[in-house]
């Protein structure tokens, strides 16, 4: 099965206008967002124009090269309601910036939908803004994408991932590797193919959606205190057109991401190797006859002599000719026995 994460990271394709990156306190998906923007700025690959609206994170933490010509950065970290000099009109500024973008394919990135909600004020107005923004992007002549990043618990993410907002979506949820190790050890359910997919998802989904277990595993007494930016587990829900055909599908897969290799299978993640079951080919058991100071092997003449020794069994392995009589006990009472055939409990009335 081909991986989905590399498809999400590459440049926009027709039919997939929305990418939602979901982080949590335990694990951030910003390294993946950084890779998406780096990939789209790469001169050797198909480039597209990028518009980044920074509400919470420093642009330098998301962009490798903010001076690149095909990246337009709106650093709005200081635009905070009540603390800004002028009245903010976030909605019109975002929409006009996107409408004025070049004709080529574009990525429009909002680094924190939750901070956008905090600025706009109400969930309804923020949803309407994002809906109108997505409509503008879908109407562009060249395939373009809206990339939204949010952190659970979020009021907006459950709304943005509904089909009412967009029938097609690539919903990328990141989990710390410690969560998968926890499910493998505490619930004896390692990820597929080590366990059946249906069983794994029935165990993993409620745990991951609850969020409490993820935070306990990371911040609890046995956790390391933070997620790991170098390796993470990526859950991808792809809804919409399959790139090669017009068939509408919904797929949910679990893949890995590492800072050295980028998208990779889960088996390549170093932190998960200890929690996976032992390899498919059984290891050879240690040979006890090796490394001893005496000779335990037999020569061919010794083996022949051994085979000719009669075994001390009565039937020597052959089937018995007569079946033995069933077991019976023959008792001869002597003078001291008082054999009474009557039933001593005869007079009981139970």
């Amino acid at each position, binding site marked *: 099965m081909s991986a989905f994460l590399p498809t999400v990271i590459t440049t926009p394709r027709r039919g997939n206008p929305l990418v939602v990156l979901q982080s949590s306190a335990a694990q951030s998906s910003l390294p993946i967002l950084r890779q998406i923007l780096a990939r789209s700025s790469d001169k050797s690959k198909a480039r597209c124009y990028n518009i980044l609206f920074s509400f*919470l994170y420093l642009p330098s933490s998301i962009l490798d090269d903010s001076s690149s010509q095909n990246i337009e950065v709106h650093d709005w970290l*200081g635009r905070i309601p009540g603390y800004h000099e002028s009245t903010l009109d976030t909605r019109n500024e975002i929409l006009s910036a996107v409408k004025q973008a070049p004709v080529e394919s574009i990525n429009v990135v909002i680094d924190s939908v939750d901070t956008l909600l905090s600025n706009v004020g109400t969930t309804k107005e923020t949803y309407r803004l994002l809906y109108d923004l997505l409509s503008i992007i879908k109407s562009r002549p060249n395939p373009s994408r809206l990339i939204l990043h949010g952190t659970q618990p979020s009021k907006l993410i459950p709304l943005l991932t509904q089909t009412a907002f967009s029938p097609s979506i690539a919903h990328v949820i990141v989990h710390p590797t410690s969560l998968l190790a926890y499910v493998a050890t505490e619930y004896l359910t390692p990820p597929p193919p080590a366990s059946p997919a249906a069983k794994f998802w029935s165990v993993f989904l409620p745990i991951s959606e609850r969020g409490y277990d993820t935070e306990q595993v990371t911040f609890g*007494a046995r956790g390391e205190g933070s997620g790991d930016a170098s390796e993470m587990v990526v859950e991808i829900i792809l809804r919409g057109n399959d790139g090669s055909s017009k068939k509408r599908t919904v797929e949910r897969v679990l893949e890995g991401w590492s800072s050295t290799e980028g998208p990779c299978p889960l088996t390549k993640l170093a932190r998960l190797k200890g929690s996976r079951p032992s390899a498919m080919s059984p290891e050879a058991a240690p040979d006890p006859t090796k490394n001893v100071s005496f000779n335990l092997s037999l020569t061919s003449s010794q083996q022949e002599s051994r085979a000719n020794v009669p075994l001390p069994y009565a039937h020597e392995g052959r089937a018995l000719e007569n079946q033995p009589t069933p077991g019976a006990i023959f008792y001869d009472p002597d003078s001291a026995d008082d054999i009474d055939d009557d039933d001593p409990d005869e007079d009981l009335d139970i």
Partner: protein
Amino acid sequence: MLSPFNLPEGIVLLITDELNSPADFLLHRSFAEHVKSAKGAKNIVLSVSDSIARWKSIALKSNLNLAQYLASGSLEFVDVSSHIQVPTGRSDQPNLHSLFNIIQPLLEKSDHGLALVILDDISTLEWIGFSLLDITRFTRALRAACLQIGATLIIRHHIVTPGEPDDMFRYLLQICTYRLEVQPLSSGRSGTVSGEIALHSGPGTIVDGQKLIPRSLALQYKLTDNGPTFFEKGTSSGVL
């Protein structure tokens, strides 16, 4: 900045502590090192619960005369409680806006890259009644102002429910560059070890050469009259 962690300047540093392992020593250490390191450095302490008298008495143990720095203007001590009003819930204005209006001119007077702002502590603001929205907007504004002049911002947050992040902690995690986590020993109180410190990076931080310290390899410390001493696990004088 802040030995032995050697953090870069110009960052947002979140320091979390617990009831049994207060992180006062880290705040005073960072202040003492910053005030001695750069001439013309500006230090702004926003103290919500501690008074200037306590800061003066602790600074004296590091041979620092705070009165001298206050007089020269290189230290500005803001007693937050005297500049804010406990919110009644009826005002449309951000309730911490008045506090920001006092801090902003102080920052504008600082040279680029030489200022240190300590907010001690953000949890008390929440406990006395300010809403999460008020506090997050104030913190965003303070952070933006510090970023503009390259100042270092240190925020202390008290963890009341270890292992169960609260909303304030989840928010602060997103904006910090690095986080110092001060925890008590899981085995209980000890005469030779006061607690442990771990160093984590923020979600958007590109770690370039900075040595992080996971909890499993946390640095232990002991508080003495002269300040803290740091050592690796199992290497304190009480153990060896």
